[in-house]
């Protein structure tokens, strides 16, 4: 059975026809379900998953067209990274994060950078709120707004890796050491992030480390710190904004 698949690939590469291409698309399409599901996991409920799948389909078709079976790589691995890239690129280009929320995130980061330069340590929420001339509740409300857009929005704001593959914070710190190429950049990134995290406040350090390195859920981290899941969510949002402001400084 693997043989008839190889046959379709060989035939398609020798003479690309719509019919063979469609056969390959239908066979590999469930990979898009996998990628879209994982990306959707970081997004709020109102993001239409069928849209994510259609963005991903473009990545799959692209992968089928560009794949070279002679090079001996596994198609699935190549396809998954193209599909992911296509979905993230499309999300970024439709800029699904409301402008007002982006602006608020930017002003919080600016306040953090400014205060850090003066205090030589991470600013507290009280200090940030004061700098922005808002109440604590208002500042926490901003963290809630940003996080209700889903952690992917934050990860996306932090994506690095100019080398073709866009890495998000989650990928960079993931347990898995997978994927060809970019391995060395990954290790470097991981190092750089570890150093940046090390300089943060105790709470932020704990949340980021447990979430990304130890892979605990927000609720499990809440049990460690003795606070609610939504409080951990706010701390996580603040910590990611802080990381971003430092890495960009």
């Amino acid at each position, binding site marked *: *059975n*693997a043989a*008839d*698949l190889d046959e*379709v690939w060989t035939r398609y590469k020798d003479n690309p026809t719509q019919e063979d291409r*469609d*056969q390959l698309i*239908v*066979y590999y*399409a*469930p*990979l*898009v*379900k*996998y990628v*879209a*599901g*994982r*990306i*959707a*996991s*970081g*997004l709020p*409920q109102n993001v239409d*998953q069928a*849209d994510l*799948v*259609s963005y991903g*389909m473009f990545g799959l078709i692209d992968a089928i067209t560009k794949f070279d079976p002679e090079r001996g790589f*596994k198609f*699935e691995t190549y396809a*998954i990274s193209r599909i992911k890239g296509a979905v993230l690129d499309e999300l970024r280009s439709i800029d699904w994060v409301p402008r007002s929320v982006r602006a608020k995130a930017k002003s919080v980061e600016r306040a953090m950078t400014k205060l850090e330069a003066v205090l030589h340590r991470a600013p507290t929420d009280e200090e940030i709120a004061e700098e922005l001339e808002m109440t604590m509740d208002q500042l926490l409300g901003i963290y809630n707004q940003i*996080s209700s*857009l*889903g*952690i*992917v929005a934050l990860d996306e704001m932090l994506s690095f890796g100019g080398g073709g593959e866009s890495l998000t914070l*989650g990928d960079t*710190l*993931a*347990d*898995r050491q*997978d*994927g060809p190429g970019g391995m060395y950049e990954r290790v470097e990134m991981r190092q750089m992030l*570890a150093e940046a*995290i090390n300089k943060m406040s105790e709470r932020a350090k*704990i949340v980021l*480390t*447990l*979430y990304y*390195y*130890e*892979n*605990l*859920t927000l609720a499990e*981290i809440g*049990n460690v710190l003795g606070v609610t*899941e*939504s409080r951990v*969510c706010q701390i996580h949002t603040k910590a990611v904004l802080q990381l971003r402001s430092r890495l960009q400084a």
Partner: protein
Amino acid sequence: LEQLRRIRVECSQVESDISLVRRVSQGRLDIVGHESTRRSGAGGSDADTPVLFDLPEILSDGPAPSGSTPGARAVSVGAPGEVAAELVKSLDTMASPSALSNIETLSDGDLRELFERIRSFEVEMSSIRRQLHERIDAIQSEIGRRYRDGEASVDSIL
């Protein structure tokens, strides 16, 4: 703690592969299901629409159980490992690629049989995955307890 973590990493890598194969088998199942719905004339899809157009609808998930926070867990999109490769191979022997890509040409009987075979495979994947989740979550709650009780500190990781 190192040992616990190593076990978790191992389980997570297997879980990631199983989840991938589970998702793939669900996708196959839903594509086959869509074809049989189309034949029975139900469901609004017009008989001439190639399955390609309907894929986004077919492959998207139902709503997650309410109360799930987006990003509750750090999730990465990884490359499939050995476990996934082996399982996909065995799925391919039950549901051949040529059958899947030429689904309109199958007889009603063959279609139904294909559906059943993929469905029992999916059920098995989901059950293994549930068991792995229980094991991983138990390890995670023990790891969490050690951090809470001060037996472990994040400084050792950083």
